[in-house]
C-alpha cells in the first residue's frame, strides 16, 4: 500500500500579538511548523504502513525552508519526502495548490491512499483535500476520525459530522482528510532521528512535475485577497462583582433582559 501524506508549513502559532498601530500580526518567533492536523495525517500514514505494509511519502508545496520540516516526518517513520518549490507556485489559492499537488502526486505515481489534514491553521479553508481529490479524479471523505478497515483497493472509515458520525466506504485510490481524534502522533525515535539527519528531501520545480504555469501560483488562482485587517472586538468587558449568588443573579438578569435567553 503506497500512501502519500500532504503536509503544509504554517507559521508557529505560539505567540500571536496584534500591532495596534499597523493592524498586523507581530510574531516574536517567526518560525514555521508542520500544520498541526498534518501531524495526525503523517501518524495515520505510518500506522497503516505498519499494519499492511508499503511505503509512506510526504509531499509539500512550499518555500525552500519547508525541506527541514519534512525531515521531521522521516524521523517518525516516513520513507520519502518530496518538496515542490518554485517561484511560480507563490500566491497559490486552494485551487492552484491542489493543481500543483496533483501534478506532484502524479509524478510520484502508484499511490493507493492520500491523507491530508482536516485544515491548515493559517489559510483555515479545509478545501485542499476535496479539491485535490477532484483534480486526481478519485473519491474523497473529509473529517475522518477512524479507519475501520483498509486493504488493497478498499477503505472503510468513520467521518465526523456536525451531530455524530457516519461510516463511509470507498475504493482506493482515494483521499481522506483527518481530524485530531484519529490517533496520537508518536515522538521520533533515535533511529528515526539519525535517518532523518542523513535523508535528502527530493526537490521538484514546476517544470519537473510538468505543471502548466498559468495554472500555478497567483496566475492560477481565481481568488484574490484584496484586503486584510485585524478583527475589532468591540469589548468594554464588564466584570460582575459580588458573592457567587449575587454574581449569578446579576448575570442571569442581564442575559434575560437582552432576550438572548428566553423563557419557554
Amino acid at each position: 500500500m503506497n500512501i502519500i501524506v500532504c503536509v503544509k508549513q504554517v507559521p508557529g502559532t505560539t505567540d500571536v500579538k496584534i500591532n495596534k498601530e499597523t493592524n498586523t500580526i507581530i510574531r516574536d518567533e517567526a518560525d514555521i511548523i508542520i500544520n498541526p492536523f498534518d501531524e495526525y495525517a503523517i501518524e495515520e500514514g505510518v500506522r497503516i504502513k505498519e499494519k499492511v505494509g508499503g511505503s509512506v511519502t510526504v509531499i509539500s508545496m512550499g518555500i525552500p525552508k519547508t525541506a527541514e520540516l519534512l525531515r521531521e516526518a522521516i524521523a517518525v517513520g516516513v520513507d520519502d519526502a518530496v518538496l515542490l518549490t518554485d517561484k511560480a507556485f507563490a500566491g497559490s489559492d486552494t485551487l492552484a495548490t491542489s493543481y500543483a499537488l496533483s501534478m506532484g502526486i502524479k509524478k510520484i505515481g502508484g499511490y493507493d491512499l492520500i491523507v491530508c489534514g482536516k485544515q491548515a491553521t493559517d489559510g483555515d479553508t479545509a478545501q485542499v483535500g476535496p479539491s485535490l481529490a477532484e483534480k486526481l479524479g478519485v473519491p474523497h471523505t473529509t473529517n475522518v476520525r477512524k479507519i475501520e478497515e483498509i486493504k488493497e483497493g478498499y477503505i472503510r472509515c468513520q467521518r465526523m459530522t456536525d451531530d455524530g458520525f457516519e461510516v463511509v466506504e470507498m475504493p482506493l485510490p482515494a483521499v481522506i482528510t483527518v481530524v485530531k481524534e484519529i490517533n496520537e502522533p508518536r515522538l521520533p525515535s533515535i533511529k528515526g532521528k539519525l535517518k532523518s539527519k542523513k535523508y535528502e528531501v527530493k526537490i521538484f520545480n514546476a517544470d519537473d512535475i510538468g505543471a502548466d504555469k498559468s495554472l500555478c501560483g497567483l496566475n492560477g488562482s481565481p481568488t484574490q485577497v484584496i484586503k486584510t485587517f485585524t478583527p475589532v472586538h468591540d469589548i468594554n468587558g464588564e466584570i460582575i462583582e459580588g458573592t457567587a449568588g449575587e454574581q449569578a443573579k446579576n448575570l442571569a438578569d442581564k442575559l434575560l433582559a437582552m432576550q438572548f435567553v428566553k423563557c419557554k
Partner: protein
Amino acid sequence: MTGIEIITDKCVGCKLCVKACMFSAIDMKDKKAVINDNCTLCGACVSSCKFDAIQMEKEKARKSVDISEYKGVWVFAEQKHGVVSQVAFELLGEGRKLADTLSVPLSAVLIGNNVPKQAKKLIAYGADNVYYVEHQSVENYNDESYTDIFVQLIEEYKPEIVLIGATTYGRSLAPRVASRLNTGLTADCTGLEIDPEERLLLQTRPAFGGNLMATIICPNHRPQMSTVRPKVMKPLEPDYSRTGEIIQPGVIIPENLKVKVLDVVQTVCETVSLSEADIIVSGGRGLGEAKNYALVEELARVLGGAAGASRAIVDAGWVDYSHQVGQTGKTVGPKVYFACGISGAVQHLAGMSSSDIIIAINKNPDAPIFKIATYGIIGDVREILPELIKQFKDKLN
C-alpha cells in the same frame, strides 16, 4: 509580470513590513526592505506599509468564461433526514439582499427525496424559485452524487454567486464542485457584500485562527462561490403567502457510486449540536475534575444550548473530542458563549471569538479569556455554576 516589488525610492526603512510578514520573507539591506525566497505572495505586507512602497502585481488574468452569461444568486439548501438545515434559511436571508442589490433572482437548490414541503418553505424564506432534484438515491448526502448533480445544475443555469453553508457537508461539497468548475471558493465567510460598480462579491472571512480578517474577490471566474459560517447571517421572517416556482430540472442522477455511506450515527441527540446552538456552555481545567463537567452540561440543558470543552479537558479524557472548541476542534459562533474555567489560549479563542456575547468565569483575573469577554466573573466555577443553574431554572419557569 507577476510578483512583489519594493519601490526603493518610497521605502523609508521603517521595518513595519518585516513585522507584518508571517513567513520571515522580508530582510533589510542598506535600510531598505528586500523580499527573499520565503515569500508566498500572501499579500499581508502590502497594506502594512504606510508609504505605498510595496507593490504586488498579477498578470492580467484570462477570463476563463464569459462572465456576463452568469446571472443570479444561489443558495444550497442542505437537508438532513428530510429537514432543511437552519443555515440555508440564514443564507436565503443574506442571498435576498445580494440578489436585490444586483437585481437578479434568488434561487435555492434542494436535493433530496420526497421533500416538496421543504421546497415551499424555502420560498417562504425568500427564494424566488427552487431547483428541486428528487430521487431515492439522493435522500442522504453523498459527496459524489451531490457534486455531480450540483455541477450539472450550475453548468446548465449559470448562476453568478453560489452560497453554501460551512457545515461538515458544505465544506466538503463546495471545494469539490469549485475544483471541477475551476472557479474560486472563499471559505467560511462571515461577511458578504456587493461591489456595485464591478458587480463583484466581496467575501470577508477570518484566517490565521481568527487573528486576521481577509476580504477576497473572484474577479474572472464564475460562479463566485463561498461557504458561509452558520449563525452569522440572519434569516428573514417566513412569509407563506410568497409565491415562487419549483423547478424540477432534468439532471442525470449518477449511478454506481464509488462513495457509499453505510451508516449515519447521531451521537448528539440529547441536546443541540455545537454548530447549530445559539447558546454554548464550555468547560475547562478550572472545573477541577471530570465529574464537574456535569455542571456544564446541566447549565447547557437548562438554557437549551450545547456543551463544549477546551482542548485540555478533552486531552485529559474528561469529555469526548466531539465537544472540543478551538483550533483543532470545532469553530463556533453562538449568540452567547460561556467559558467556564477556561483560561483562553489563542487556540481556544480561534474557535469561539466570533460569538456575540462571551461570558468568562475564571478564578484567575489575569486569564486571557477576560480580554475578549463581554461579561467576566472572577470566581470559582464550581461555586458559580450551581448558582447560575439555580437562577436560570427559577427564572425560566
